[in-house]
């Protein structure tokens, strides 16, 4: 039990002077992902053939690898921001919270890096 005043308790450690960037990034990535996911969905559904050769050829064609890499990057970024909010909302023990945040950061970075690497690898192979 603590005898701190209620005002001191709710004031916690003061304002972190942070949060605007997170809020802005969440909205910007969402706005970018809306047209990108629509493009991806339409493009994949309208592919004339869906075998391995056709899809890898499509990935390497024209601007597709650039837009695909961008989609992967932004999706991972947006998901990382969202998962961070969920962890901060629900996980209250400091140790588990930091562990969760780091794990999510690592997993999303790994996902983004491997996704972009896969796109580049297919694109550069078909370009060669």
């Amino acid at each position, binding site marked *: 039990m603590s005898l701190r*005043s*209620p*005002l001191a*308790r*709710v*004031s*916690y450690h003061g*304002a*972190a*002077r*942070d*949060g*605007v*960037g*997170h*809020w*802005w990034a969440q909205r910007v990535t969402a706005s970018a992902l809306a047209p990108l996911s629509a493009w991806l969905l339409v493009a994949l559904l309208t592919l004339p053939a869906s075998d391995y050769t056709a899809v890898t050829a499509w990935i390497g064609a024209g601007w597709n690898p650039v837009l695909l890499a961008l989609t992967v990057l932004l999706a991972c970024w947006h998901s990382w921001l969202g998962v961070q*909010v969920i962890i*901060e*909302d*629900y*996980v*209250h*023990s400091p140790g*588990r919270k930091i562990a969760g945040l780091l794990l999510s950061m690592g997993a999303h970075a790994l996902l983004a890096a491997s996704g972009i690497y896969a796109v580049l690898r297919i694109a550069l192979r078909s370009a060669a």
Partner: protein
Amino acid sequence: MAEFKLPPNSRIDTRAGKTHRASAGAKSVRTFKIYRFDPHAQQRPRVDSYEVDMAGCGPMVLDALLKIKNEIDPTLSLRRSCREGICGSCAMNINGLNTLACTKACDELGRGDINIFPLPHMPVVKDLVTDLTDFYAQYAAVKPWLQTRTPAAPDRERLQSKDDQQRIDRPSACILCACCSTACPSYWWNSERYLGPAALLAAYRWIVDSRDDATGERLDALEDPFRLYRCHTIMNCTEACPKDLNPAKAIGAIKQMLAERQH
């Protein structure tokens, strides 16, 4: 982790509820199921049923509660004062929605039983009385008073245009009943660090006040991942407000002001 279940001694004992039957001559009987908790009884909370003869009762839920307290069971505890929606004392959860018992008519609640619980996720002092200490501290934390550096003219009040007054008109009508904050899931999970819709609406009321000189400092004090940005625009606050105010919109406006000063 967030506690999705109440601790065992706070869970409702479904077998312990008592039923107070209406007298044989009652004409139009309505059942009120009311949450009961006595901190001194060393018992889990229970839900008691009260059959009230609506023929001899006023139209509002508060009328029925006072009839129960006066005529059926004097041990029932609740807060009330003005009985006209301006003091905010009788805020409680009625049929699943936070509202004021004094302005909610029983007829608005359909024909079935009326379930009355204390404001959600707050420590219960007794029955329908919750501990609002931190809620009031959060209100105090946003410094809800005029802060100026500009000296007032010696011969008149600080003037305000009609348009400027209109901006604070609605947010000033908040009666601090806590219906909004205690309806907010984000406030449930993080009430120690998230200020909640009521305190943020109060903050907004002073941020947009044309006579206040501390707008920047007020925004500084809110720029925090928990104090402000725990709001995920769920909008239960606006849904619950018995005064038809819009805390969600005020919070959105604060976020917009914080974003605008970045660029």
